[in-house]
């Protein structure tokens, strides 16, 4: 029953696939129930957002936006032929393009507000990333990041110290304490044999890592695999397959609409939009609740290339598709009845120093660590969420290494896939790999790290220096997880998806956002210039007043006849400052003058004695002398004298 007049909506197959029913994100039923992301703000951290375009403008949130490249509040993209800064606008359109405006397309969460943080169009540092991840974090709920380290099959990089700290701070303090939701694209390095476990943003426990599948549900040529992939959603594929239709910028050659948005960049914003729908129906979902709901509701589907394995908790995962396809209907129905997961519990093993050689394939090095009941007693950790392994390995050709982690259940994660293009000679220095494949499984037991060298060197060259195991999870038991799975399945009919049903939400924390206006060097320079001008002008003005008062003083005694107001400079007249001086000369009776001068002393009063003592007479004095020809330096004291 959903109809829009947006001309490109019929081509938005990812929203409503009429050619291949079912191969879409299953969102229309959610829209029919007025779940459109209302009250939720998604921010696109990218190369800017053209917020004036008609598909974006009505939903644009200036409050959540910022330009870190130009250091001003407006994230408008700057035209750049070389870089084509239309990327952020396209992502923003996927999330919140306005419907029924007879223009282009419709966003997944078209009722949500969309903000932009421009940060990719210039030099980027760790500190800038840190600022971006927490920018307006009490306004922005979801941070959509369709970027990352180079996907060239040889880079190992991720957030540095500050970026990591900002991600952690975001999930602790963002969204009034419910935690910012960070959605990241898994990467486009498929053709370079890249793997998202070498991307620290995808590996982070604080992010939702989203991969791409094409319209047929297959892994596109560009998509990467990894053990930390949470889920996938649709994007473009081969040339024969349709890409994502979305808003575009209209700068340069842009038309405001595109049918060619693709890559994992196009997948992550769809996920961000779906999470916005979840947050509308249940605003108090924490960052971990969102991850849990994705794990519980993503759907496994048949794909020849995907190697699905069902873990001990009953969740199916593949390195290609994570826990499966995101389904907006399932996500929103689950969110509606979701009560928060227990606090995050964790366990960190000691740093395990090994200094053991890594043998050539097919042999391998196997190291173990047993996590006992006693180890977990303090934290209460029972079932797993993320499992992380931090390793230091020396090897002359890093890409020849293969690392597998086995959870106590025997669930295998390929956390370090060999990469043919990675010939880095430095190995891994405290690199953290992570996996979600053991989600819901028991934490207790023996973890096995198996490393082998799949290179063609004829001798053993790699050495595992040390490793450390970190487990994240909760006090939920296996029974709790099964109960929750059953509860969610019972909600999938949509019976709770109406306004009359709402679970209570705890109030959020009041976290002040440090957003005082920072004075930039340019602003400071401007202020200094304005200040200098003001001082100069004040001195000039005082000098002018001083000189004119001296003229007046020279006219103090007008022995006979009227005493005229001394001539002022033309400038003073033009500026209207003439009226600010009180005439010292008066033709009134001296008694009256005394009476009038009993009030508080005026500037003129104070100046007059000094002026009288000074013998420096300006040119204007001569002019005044013409007005008052009888002036004398000896001050008259007699009442018969006219007093100035």
């Amino acid at each position, binding site marked *: 029953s959903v109809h829009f007049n947006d001309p490109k909506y019929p081509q938005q197959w990812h929203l409503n696939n009429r050619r291949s029913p079912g191969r879409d994100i299953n969102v229309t039923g959610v829209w029919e129930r007025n779940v459109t992301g209302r009250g939720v703000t998604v921010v696109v951290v990218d190369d800017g957002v053209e917020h004036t375009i008609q598909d974006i403008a009505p939903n644009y949130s200036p409050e959540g936006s910022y330009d870190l490249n130009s250091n001003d509040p407006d994230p408008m993209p700057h035209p750049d032929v070389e870089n084509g800064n239309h990327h952020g606008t396209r992502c923003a359109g996927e999330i919140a393009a306005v419907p029924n405006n007879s223009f282009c397309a419709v966003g997944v969460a078209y009722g949500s507000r969309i903000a932009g943080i421009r940060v990719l169009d210039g030099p980027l540092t760790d500190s800038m990333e*840190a600022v971006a*991840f927490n920018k307006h974090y009490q306004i922005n709920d979801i941070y959509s990041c*369709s970027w990352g380290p180079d996907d060239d099959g040889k880079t190992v990089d991720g957030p540095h110290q500050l970026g990591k700290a900002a991600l952690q701070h975001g999930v602790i303090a963002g969204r009034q304490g419910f935690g910012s939701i960070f959605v990241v694209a898994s990467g486009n390095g498929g053709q370079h044999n890249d793997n998202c476990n070498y991307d620290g943003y995808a590996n982070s426990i604080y992010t939702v890592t989203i991969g791409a599948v094409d319209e047929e549900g297959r892994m596109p040529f560009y998509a990467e695999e990894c053990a930390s992939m949470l889920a996938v959603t649709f994007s473009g594929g081969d040339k024969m397959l349709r890409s994502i239709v979305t808003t575009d910028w209209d700068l340069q050659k842009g038309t405001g609409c595109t049918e060619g948005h693709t890559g994992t960049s196009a997948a992550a914003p769809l996920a961000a939009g779906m999470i916005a729908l979840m947050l509308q129906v249940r605003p108090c979902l924490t960052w971990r609740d969102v991850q849990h709901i994705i794990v519980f509701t993503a759907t496994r589907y048949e794909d020849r290339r995907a190697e699905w394995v069902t873990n001990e908790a009953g969740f199916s995962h593949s390195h290609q598709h994570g826990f499966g396809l995101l389904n907006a209907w399932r996500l929103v129905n689950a969110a509606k009845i979701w009560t928060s997961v227990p606090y995050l519990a964790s366990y960190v093993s000691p740093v395990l120093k090994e200094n053991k050689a890594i043998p050539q394939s097919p042999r391998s090095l196997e190291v173990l660590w047993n996590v006992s009941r006693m180890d977990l007693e303090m934290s209460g950790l029972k079932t797993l969420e993320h499992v992380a392994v931090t390793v230091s390995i020396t090897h002359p050709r890093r890409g020849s290494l293969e690392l597998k982690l086995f959870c106590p259940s025997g669930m295998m994660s390929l956390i370090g896939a060999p990469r043919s293009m990675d010939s880095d000679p430095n190995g891994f220095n405290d690199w953290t790999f992570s996996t979600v494949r053991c989600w819901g499984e028991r934490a207790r037991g023996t973890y096995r790290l198996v490393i082998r060298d799949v290179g063609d060197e004829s001798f053993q060259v790699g050495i595992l220096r040390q490793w450390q195991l970190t487990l994240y999870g909760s006090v939920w038991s296996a029974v709790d997880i099964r109960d929750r799975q059953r509860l969610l399945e019972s909600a999938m009919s949509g019976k709770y998806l109406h306004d009359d049903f709402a679970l209570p939400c705890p109030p959020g924390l009041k976290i002040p956002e440090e957003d005082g206006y920072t004075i930039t060097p340019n602003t400071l320079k401007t202020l200094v210039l304005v200040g200098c001008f003001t001082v100069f002008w004040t001195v000039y003005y005082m000098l002018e007043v001083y000189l004119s008062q001296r003229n007046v003083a020279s006219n103090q005694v007008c022995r006979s006849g009227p005493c005229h107001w001394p001539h002022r400079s033309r400038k003073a007249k033009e500026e209207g400052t003439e009226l600010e001086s009180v005439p010292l000369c008066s033709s009134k009776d001296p008694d009256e003058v005394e009476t009038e001068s009993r009030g508080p002393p005026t500037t003129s009063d104070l100046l007059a004695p000094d002026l009288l003592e000074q013998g420096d007479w300006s040119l204007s004095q001569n002019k005044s002398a013409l007005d008052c020809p009888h002036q004398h330096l000896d001050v008259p004291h007699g009442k018969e004298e006219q007093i100035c």
Partner: protein
Amino acid sequence: LAGTGGPDGQGTGGPSWAVHLESLEGDGEEETLEQQADALAQAAGLVNAGRIGELQGHYLFVQPAGHRPALEVEAIRQQVEAVLAGHEAVRWHSEQRLLRRAKR
């Protein structure tokens, strides 16, 4: 070199350092930390460009604007590193380097 002249954006283009301070007086109040940061930046010949986003105790120190020959920059870098490394309130510091990030 890092292109940041302030925590909220790019600036002078000279080297810059992220510094994590802990309050010497123990109370950790923002104002105290800010004063400490100003003093430390001055001691290192840098300018405190302010707190890094929402990260308490983290400040960005930048080199005052102006072109300097490479040798001088290196000397400044060594001096800054020495000052920051030797200060008791500095929990961590790192010169800011450009990151390579690609749209996907």
